[in-house]
C-alpha cells in the first residue's frame, strides 16, 4: 500500500495499481470545477503515500486536504468522492456522469445581440446613423435604459475606455520620503559611504495604498434595463484594481462576482458573471440580501473602512426596517456609503420608495446612475472618498 505510488502507471491487473483510479478521481474533480493543478495531484499522491490508501477515511482526507482550497469546494469534493469511490472499491472503472448542466446563457437575454454590424435594428429609423449623429457627448447623457442596440454597443466601448482612479488610504508600510521619522537603515548606509560621517538624516513615511471598494449591483427585475451597463461598469472598476475591488449582485440572493469580473475580456467576464448569478431579473428582498452581505462579507472585512457603492432603485418588497438596520451596520463598518439610484437623475424624482427612505439616514451620498456622465460623476465621488 505504501509502495512507490508516484510514477507511471501500468495498465496491468485491475487493482494492483491504484494510481490510475486516483488520478481519474482528480480529473473528475477538475471537471466539477475545482482548481486541481498538477502539483496538487502530486501532493495528493504523496499524501496517500504517507497514509493508508486502502482506508476510505484516509483517502478522503488526503484528497480533501490537498485538492480543495475553498469552503465552496468542499460540497463538490464530497459529492465527487462519493460518486467515484463508493460503488465497487478501487474506483476508476465506475461510471462517472458529468452532472453539470451547460450554463444557461442568461446574459444573452439581457443584452440584445449586438455583434458588430447590424441585424437587429428595431424601428424604422436606421439606428446606425442616429448613433453616429448623437456622438459621445449626447450619448454620455442619455438614459441607459433607453438606448438602441447600436448606442448600447457604442456605450460599451466608452465604458471600456474609463480609467477610474481608486481612492487611497494611509498604509502601515513605510517607504523613503522627505518627511517623517528617520529611517535608521538608510541613514546608516548613507553614513557608511562617508566614512561613518552622518551628514544627513534619511527619512521615511507611511506609503499610500488603494482603499477597498465594494460594488453591490441590484439585478432584480426593476433594475433590468440598467443591469448590463452597471455590470460592465463594475467590470471596468474591478479590472482597474483587481486586488481591492469586490463586486456582488443583489437579487433574491447575494452572489459574489469579483472572480468572474477579473477576466480581461469584458464579454467573457460578463458571461461568466451571468452564469454565477442565479437570480437574474427576479424579485428583491433588499434587506435580507444586504444582511447576507454584511454577515458573510461586510463584517468580516470586505466592507471595513472601504467605499461601499449600492446600485439599486430601492424597491423593497420585504419589510424596510430590516434594510434600515443593515444599512446602519454597513454605515458603521464602511468608510463611505454611497447609493446610486438610476431614477434619481430623472425629473421629479423624490426619494420616497420604501427602501431608499429606510437607507437614507445612513448614506454619505445619493447619486444618479442612469447615464455615462453620472457614472463618471460617481467615479469622482469614489476617488475623493
Amino acid at each position, binding site marked *: 500500500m505504501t509502495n512507490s505510488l508516484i510514477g507511471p502507471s501500468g495498465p496491468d491487473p485491475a487493482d494492483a495499481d491504484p494510481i490510475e483510479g486516483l488520478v481519474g478521481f482528480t480529473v473528475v474533480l477538475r471537471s466539477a470545477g475545482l482548481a486541481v493543478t498538477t502539483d496538487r495531484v502530486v501532493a495528493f499522491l504523496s499524501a496517500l503515500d504517507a497514509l493508508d490508501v486502502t482506508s476510505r477515511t484516509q483517502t478522503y482526507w488526503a484528497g480533501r*486536504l490537498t485538492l480543495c482550497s475553498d469552503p465552496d469546494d468542499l460540497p463538490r469534493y464530497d459529492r465527487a468522492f462519493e460518486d467515484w469511490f463508493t460503488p465497487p472499491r478501487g474506483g476508476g472503472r465506475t461510471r462517472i456522469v458529468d452532472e453539470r448542466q451547460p450554463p444557461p446563457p442568461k446574459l444573452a437575454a439581457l443584452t440584445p445581440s449586438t455583434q458588430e454590424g447590424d441585424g437587429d435594428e428595431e424601428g424604422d429609423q436606421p439606428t446606425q446613423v442616429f448613433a453616429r449623429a448623437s456622438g459621445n457627448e449626447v450619448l454620455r447623457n442619455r438614459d441607459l435604459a433607453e438606448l438602441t442596440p447600436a448606442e448600447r454597443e457604442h456605450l460599451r466601448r466608452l465604458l471600456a475606455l474609463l480609467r477610474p482612479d481608486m481612492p487611497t488610504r494611509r498604509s*502601515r508600510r513605510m517607504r523613503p520620503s522627505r518627511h517623517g521619522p528617520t529611517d*535608521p537603515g538608510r541613514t546608516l548606509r548613507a553614513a*557608511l559611504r562617508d566614512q*561613518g560621517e552622518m551628514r544627513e538624516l534619511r527619512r521615511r513615511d507611511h506609503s499610500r495604498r488603494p482603499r477597498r471598494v465594494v460594488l453591490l449591483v441590484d439585478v432584480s427585475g426593476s433594475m433590468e434595463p440598467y443591469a448590463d451597463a452597471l455590470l460592465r461598469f463594475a467590470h471596468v472598476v474591478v479590472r482597474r484594481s483587481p486586488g481591492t475591488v469586490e463586486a456582488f449582485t443583489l437579487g433574491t440572493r447575494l452572489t459574489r462576482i469579483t472572480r468572474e469580473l477579473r477576466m480581461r475580456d469584458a464579454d467573457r467576464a460578463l458571461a461568466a458573471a451571468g452564469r454565477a448569478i442565479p437570480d437574474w431579473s427576479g424579485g428583491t428582498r433588499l434587506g435580507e440580501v444586504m444582511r447576507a452581505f454584511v454577515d458573510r462579507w461586510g463584517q468580516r472585512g470586505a466592507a471595513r473602512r472601504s467605499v461601499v457603492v449600492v446600485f439599486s432603485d430601492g424597491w423593497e418588497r420585504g419589510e424596510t426596517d430590516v434594510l434600515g438596520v443593515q444599512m446602519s451596520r454597513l454605515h458603521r463598518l464602511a468608510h463611505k456609503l454611497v447609493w446610486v439610484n438610476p431614477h434619481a437623475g430623472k425629473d421629479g424624482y423624490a426619494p420616497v420608495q420604501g427602501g431608499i427612505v429606510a437607507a437614507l439616514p445612513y448614506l454619505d451620498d445619493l447619486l444618479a446612475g442612469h447615464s455615462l456622465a453620472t457614472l463618471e460623476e460617481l467615479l469622482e465621488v469614489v476617488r475623493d472618498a
Partner: protein
Amino acid sequence: MTDRPADPAASPAALAAALRSTGYLADDGLATATFLAMRMNRPLFCEGEPGTGKTALAQALAQVLGAKLIRLQCHDGIDASQALYDWDFPRQLLHLRALEATAGSGTLDTDAVEASLYDPRFLLARPILEALQTAPSVLLIDEIDRADDEFEAFLLEVLTEHAVTIPEIGEVRATTPPLVVLTSNRTREVHDALKRRCLYLWLDHPDLQREIEILHSRLPGIPERLAAQVAGAVRALRQADLLKPPGVAETIDWARALQLVGASHLDVDSAAATLGAVLKYREDADRVRKQLDSLLAS
C-alpha cells in the same frame, strides 16, 4: 504530555491521542491534516469561523512535539523587517563610532567596516527567522488574511524553501524545517499560489458531543449537566441567526463564567447574568435575552 511512549508522528491516530493528552480534541480530518503537515513538510492552512480552534491547534502541536511556539500576528502593512529580521541600528552606530575612535588618524577600510557592521550579532531575528533558526519549532502565522498580498508573496520563499536570503549575509536555511500553521478568518481571499503550497484544512464548529468533551477537557471538574446544557445552548445560539455566532472559545468562556458565579446548572437567571461571555454584540444580547426561556428549553 510525556506519559505517552508512542511517537506522535507515527500515524494520525497516534497524533490525535497525543493532542488529546494536551486537552485538544482532534477529529479524523484534523489529525490527518496535522500528521500530513509533519510528514510532507508542508504548511497547514487553517481556515474557518473565528473561535473554531485554529490558533489553539498550533499551541497544542507545539506542546505535543516539545517544540517552541513562535507566533507571528499579521496586520495590515506588515513587512519583512517585522516578520523576518531587522538590523540593530543603534548598536551598529555605536560600533561604527567605536571603530572610528580606535582607528586614530588612519582612514578606515570601508569594506572591512561594512563587513563588521553587517555581522550576525547585529541581526535581530523576528519570528520567521527565529523559527528557521530554532531546531524543533512550530511557526504560527496568525490571521494571514489581515496582511496584504505583497506579504503573501514574500512568504512563498520561506514556506517552500524553508530559507530566507539576507542580502548582507546570505542564505539562512533551517536544518530542521519548522512546522508551519497559517490561519485565516476569510476576511479576504488569500492568493491561490500560497494555498497551493499548503494543506488546506477547513474547520467547522464541533458537533454537540465533541463540544461537551472539549468542555470537560478544558474545564476539568465541570458538572456533567452544566457542560451538556452549555454546549446545547451554544448550539441553539449558532442557529439563531446572530450577528456573531459564538465559537468554541466563547463556549469555554461561558462555562467558566457560569462556574465562577457558582451556577451548577444553566437557568434563565444564571444565563442572563453571564450572557456577556458568549455574545459580543448588544443587538444579539437584546434578542437572546428576550427568548432565553425558549432557548434553554430546546
